[in-house]
């Protein structure tokens, strides 16, 4: 297994190289630059030139890339053009916020969607199945920002139960942090429940048609045991793949939800950096995201054998 992990990490390096080169080139192809944004409507070409020189933006693109890549090899992602802070510090400050919300949302979505999907499959074509499928279609049709705003309106404005903005770390203040997490976690989970429940339902239906399930039932095993002990492990594989993809996607920044709920997460950092043309931060964030995807998918791959003994790494 160790050689498999090492191989996967090595395979990530060329991916990261390609990503870094693409990101570096693409962000500079977009019109606009950080100096123009900082100076705004004041016309002072001398000051603009001086700032470009200070920030190294007057160098040729290959020189800029070589400088950035050279630092990268030493583990230095550069410093923010706007704030002068190390990019790695910014990422490390913002990522735990995203991770906390996203992991909680994925856990909540899994806890609801997996049983719901299995239940729908078990009751296939009956009213219970129809209810779950309709609910999933309804939830998948709701844009997450709209769900977020509605939750804020209901629980923040009308009922005045929960804060409408802000964030506190669970690790730092413990249970009181929950009140800041509830709405964003629910908003994210609502849309994820739909995808997961549908995948779980489909894979469970397939598994329930297999002969070994009929055999288990013929042995007289209780239906609950058939479902949980025999059907679940095999049906869970495809859902695990979806969880991995969703997790990778969300961990790389749930920018919309972070904006609606004012969470200082990775997605907002990236969006703000793009708007400000803060090149080092954009490059650093996207490189981090690329590695994150590789890592999450690696973890998912490593988990497969736990549920399906036929899979060997």
């Amino acid at each position, binding site marked *: 297994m160790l050689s498999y992990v090492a191989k996967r990490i090595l395979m990530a390096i060329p991916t990261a190289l390609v990503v870094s080169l693409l990101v570096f080139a693409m962000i500079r192809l*977009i*019109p*606009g*630059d950080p100096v*123009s*944004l*900082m*100076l*705004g*409507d*004041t*016309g*002072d*070409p*001398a*000051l*603009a030139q*001086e*700032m470009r020189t*200070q920030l190294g933006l007057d160098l040729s693109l290959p020189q800029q890339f070589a400088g950035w890549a050279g630092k990268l090899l030493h583990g230095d992602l550069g410093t923010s*053009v*706007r*704030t*002068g802070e190390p990019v790695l510090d*910014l990422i490390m*400050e*913002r990522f735990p916020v995203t991770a906390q919300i996203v992991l909680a949302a994925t856990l909540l979505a899994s806890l609801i969607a997996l049983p719901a999907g299995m239940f729908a499959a078990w009751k296939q074509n009956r009213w219970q199945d129809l209810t779950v499928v309709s609910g999933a279609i309804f939830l998948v049709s709701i844009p997450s920002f709209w769900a977020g*705003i509605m939750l*804020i*309106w209901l629980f*923040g*404005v009308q*009922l*005045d*139960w*929960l*804060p*409408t*903005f*802000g*964030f506190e770390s669970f690790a730092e203040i413990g*249970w*009181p942090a*929950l*009140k800041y997490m*509830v709405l964003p976690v629910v908003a994210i989970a609502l849309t994820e429940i739909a995808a997961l429940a549908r995948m779980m339902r489909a894979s469970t239906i397939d598994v329930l048609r297999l002969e070994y399930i009929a055999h288990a039932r013929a042995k007289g095993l209780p239906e609950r045991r058939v479902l949980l002990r025999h059907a679940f492990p095999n049906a869970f594989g495809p859902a695990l793949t979806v969880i991995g993809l969703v997790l990778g996607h969300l961990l790389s920044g749930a920018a919309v939800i972070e*904006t*609606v*709920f*004012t969470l*200082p997460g990775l997605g*907002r*950092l990236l969006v*703000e950096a793009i*708007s*400000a*043309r803060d090149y080092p931060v954009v490059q650093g964030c996207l490189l981090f995201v690329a590695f994150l995807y590789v890592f999450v998918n690696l973890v998912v791959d490593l988990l497969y054998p736990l549920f399906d003994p036929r899979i060997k790494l």
Partner: protein
Amino acid sequence: MKRRFRPWALSALLLCTGALAAPPSPTEIRIAESFDTPTSMPGHRSRNTLTDGIMLHVVESLVALKSDLGVGPMLADSWTISPDGKTYRFKLRHGVRFHNGAPVTSAEVIWSLNRIMDPRAESYCRNQYDGSKGAKVVAARADAPDAVTIELDRPNALFLQQLANIQCPLAVLHPDSVDAAGKWLRPIGTGPYMFGQWRRGQFVQLLAWPGYQPRPEPPDGLAGAKRALANLRFVVIPDAASQKAAFMSGQVDLITAQSDSPPPKAPLWTIHVEQNLDANALLMQSRDPLLSKPAMRRAVALSLDLPTLVAALTNKTTTYNPSLVPLGTANYSPVHARGYVQDLAQVKALLAEAGYKGEVVTIQTNKRFPDLYRIAVVAQSMLRRAGIHAVVEVLEWATQVSNYREGKFQIMAFTYSSRLDPAVMYGDVLGDKSRTPTSQWTDPEASAILARIAGVSDPAQRKAAFEQIHQRMIAATPMIEIYNTPALVAVSKRLSGFVPWSLHRPRLFNVSKR
């Protein structure tokens, strides 16, 4: 069966009863902002309006802006100006202390000025003192612990205003604001608030400074007596709908409301209309083959029913202002109210004179500033009605700023941020486009009028000069100034003492919270 304590169950119960949603501390005023400040250094090159809004509570200059945008005493009790207008002598106020308890002396004033002028300090304001923009500071010395002299290379009638400018103040700071290597740490100023906790992307907290000694004069703008009656928290809420929700639920006390979707009328809050100095305009590129013709630019201007456009876009909270001199300020006179009057018959003649054959004219705008988008859309409709084939191009703000700075546009809906004096605004607009593409109007005669009043302090002479420049501008039609942005500031009725003003950075000193 043995029952065990389940903390999650208790938490869920508390959540359901709302017990965890504690209201903010009653002694803390919360102000919502759309974006975070990138820096805690006043006048840093990356500063934004929030930086300015925070710093006006934390730092002070020798003089301070009054409500009429003149200057009053602050850290300096008095000052004299030499007859040649080049030497300023300031007498410092006694008993003022920095937030670290150290007394304010002339040494810190000189240190603060020298720091702005040091290129390593990355100050956005250096060009105001090094001669790039206006007069150059040739000497600054401490004559006594309470006396400072600043010498300029030439007279500058706006020098005192420059010291008090909220974007680039001469913020008098304690040297401990930087580390031994000169790296910026945090502002240690003299204002009624101390810089407290800063959680990036979340909030900046300012704490009432108990050692603050208010000036004896009554409050006036940023001058006069200032008292910190509650702590402040500037919270970052990027989404406008979320800001509104936070305000309506009482979780923040003050927001700048969207003009098209303010909070509904309610007994719990008041909505103030602030007449700001920001100037919304349609810029026209005179280097464009089509718009280089004065007849074409004039045809564009006379196609627009500008009073109707302003009334529609601002819900009649302000009126059409054709001048770069802001409405309602001391330099505004009836001459500045004379602008363009829609005349479609004349437009037809002007288009024929310009040889216009239905070419497309593109109006660049963005959606980050909804006013600019709406100006472009309404202008497009009016131009089309007048026979000009206008199209709207919506750009991302960074792209639009870049195009503005490079002069890459035909017509652009654009906003100029507030300038304290019309001379500064005209100075930024006038110039040689081939050298500075941000210049919108090349007129050597207007530039000469402006240069003549650089050292003139007489208000009547300055007012007359601005009238002359305005008349020349309307005649040449290099751009179409439309209105000064009104801002809707929603303020909770739990706050008392809030007074709106034209610089659109809320002043929270002398404001208390029930």
